[in-house]
């Protein structure tokens, strides 16, 4: 089921949570909504679910306008950050809840329901746990039960709101891999909200980066990491340093030195600008051409070493990332920096 969101807006009182969001999700796609808290990603997800009423715009499920449909009519599966399992019901009863509440004429027989529960328990690797209560399960197990409960009603779209947010780092990673495999097998159109970029880049087919109720960029994980479209995305995803530069006749300058960036497209503006550089795109040599700078800091972190350089004539510190086994320079050494890739934004 493909999903088409058109010019969606949502205001809470006088504050706008979504400013005209347009988004298409292809059938069977696993899409991550990534952004800091307050970026509107959860509001967007809840509007799709029907848990929030949008202030304007349309939501189409497979071409059919669902904007005014109730939550119950939308046939979505929703997984909450804190599982929202019914703790007075057994795992089996939790999973079958969505089938049991159906009106009599569409409700499957008791035998069909119990078969479905067994099938889903096997799918989430919790066969034999049907008779237990949620309080007897670990966090990761509970979240898998919540997923099975959402899948039991055969939803047209699966919506996950920070599904791994309440779990510890190790379980999080395991469950992330598991969800990816699970999605590849079952092929549900899936939207998931996260503020964890590693999770989004690792798991999703496509990532939508949001900030302040707007989409900043959408694209594959490679796109958003390697080619951030806006200063916000550069800042939010991965690591980067920001340098104040000046563009003069299409070429960027730091202080009096020109910064040569091989793959930078020609600049169509002059004046002050911001240059965003990732540490892994900074190389340094002891001689030759480049941006001359002085080593001001050295910091070993696991398998790599960060070296801070202060470019001549500025206060800004540019970091470079090198393997830890490479002979490091000393503080005060001079080096020529080569910036292999960067983003340059006017302003």
């Amino acid at each position: 089921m493909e999903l088409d969101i058109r010019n969606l807006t949502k205001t809470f009182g006088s504050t706008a949570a979504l400013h005209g969001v347009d988004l298409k999700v292809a059938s069977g796609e696993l899409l991550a909504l990534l952004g800091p808290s307050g970026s509107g990603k959860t509001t967007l997800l809840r509007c799709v679910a029907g848990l929030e009423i949008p202030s304007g715009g349309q939501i189409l499920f497979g071409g059919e306008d669902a904007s005014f449909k109730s939550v119950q009519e939308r046939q979505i599966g929703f997984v909450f950050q804190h599982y929202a399992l019914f703790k007075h019901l057994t795992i089996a009863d939790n999973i079958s809840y969505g089938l049991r509440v159906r009106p009599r004429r569409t409700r499957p027989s008791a035998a069909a329901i119990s078969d479905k529960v067994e099938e889903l328990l096997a799918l989430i690797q919790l066969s034999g746990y049907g008779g237990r209560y949620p309080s007897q399960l670990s966090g990761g197990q509970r979240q898998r039960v919540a997923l099975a409960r959402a899948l039991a009603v055969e939803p047209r779209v699966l919506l996950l709101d920070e599904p791994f947010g309440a779990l510890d780092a190790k379980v999080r990673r395991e469950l992330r891999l598991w969800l990816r495999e699970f999605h590849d097998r079952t092929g549900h159109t899936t939207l998931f909200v996260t503020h964890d970029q590693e999770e989004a880049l690792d798991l999703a087919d496509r990532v939508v980066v949001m900030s302040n109720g707007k989409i900043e960029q959408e694209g594959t994980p490679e796109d958003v990491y390697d080619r951030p479209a806006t200063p916000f995305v550069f800042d939010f995803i991965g690591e980067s340093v920001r340098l104040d530069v000046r563009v003069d006749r299409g070429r960027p300058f730091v202080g009096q030195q020109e910064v040569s960036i091989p793959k930078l497209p020609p600049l169509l503006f002059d004046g002050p600008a911001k240059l965003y550089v990732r540490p892994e795109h900074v190389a340094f040599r002891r001689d030759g051409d480049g941006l001359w700078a002085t080593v001001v800091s050295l910091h070993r972190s696991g398998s790599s070493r960060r070296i801070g350089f202060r470019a001549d004539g500025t206060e800004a510190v540019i970091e470079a990332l090198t393997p830890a086994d490479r002979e490091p320079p000393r503080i005060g050494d001079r080096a020529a920096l080569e910036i292999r890739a960067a983003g340059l934004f006017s302003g």
Partner: protein
Amino acid sequence: MTLPGFLSPLSEQDLAPGEPGDPARQLPLKARPMTLTAPFVKPSVLPGFRLTIIFTLLYLTAIVLLPLGALLFRASSLGVSELFALAFDSRTLSALELSFLTSFAAAAFNVPFGLLIAWVLVRYDFPGRRFFDAIIDLPFALPTAVAGIALTALYAPKGWIGSVAAVFGFKIAFTPLGVFLALVFVGLPFIVRTVQPVLAEVDRELEEAAATLGAGRLRTVASVVLPVLSPAILTGFALAFARAVGEYGSVIFIAGNIPYVSEIAPLLIVIKLEEFDYAGATAVAAIMLTISFGTLLLINLIQARARARYGHV
């Protein structure tokens, strides 16, 4: 001459840390309290268990157990046959029946309506909400005799409501119905006030989850919210019931106190006391105590069972 490593005085270097004899290891053993610690007392970093448990036990004994024990002692001195004769006296029986049945009915009646009021007060915001919230407590605060007189004035055959009811052939005051009404009045706050905080804490995501799974609103409330509220409802019911059984002031005015018809058990006790029939009063009191205790115990057991099963997620 000394035997090596046995009787010779050990220097500090001879001891590896953690070996018996290492001063660092000896210390916790010495520090362990060798006082009157009962075997069920687990060591805890929170001090004051012994002090508080002793105080609690003494206090409960003095305030609750002593008077009740004295009552039972007094009743037991009557002798079994005499006690039974008093208990199964038909006037006593009908008073007990009226007391417990109307109390049960009033508490049960208060459950749905108290729940509804709590729901409205918690879930909706409307002008005057705080005012209505405050008047819930009035039955608590009012001297019960005042409530009794007010209710009687309303429901008596010449009162505002009583006169209307009389047109349709109903008599409210001076009948068991009047008793029931007075008990509904005094019991309402117990349900509302026990349900309210729990309802406010109910995770809205549970209801949203049920809705996404296709459950309609009524179904969601019945299958998701009510089970969460049920321990609070049961507690409120137990409190309202207990209060109603012991209620005296508000009932005696409206009841009319006609023996075999609208005479409640607490009143019967007072009547027996006024007649200097201490044995009879004690017997009725002991029976009331036993039934009340049994009911509350049952309710507690149901709650304990629910807790053990569902745990706290």
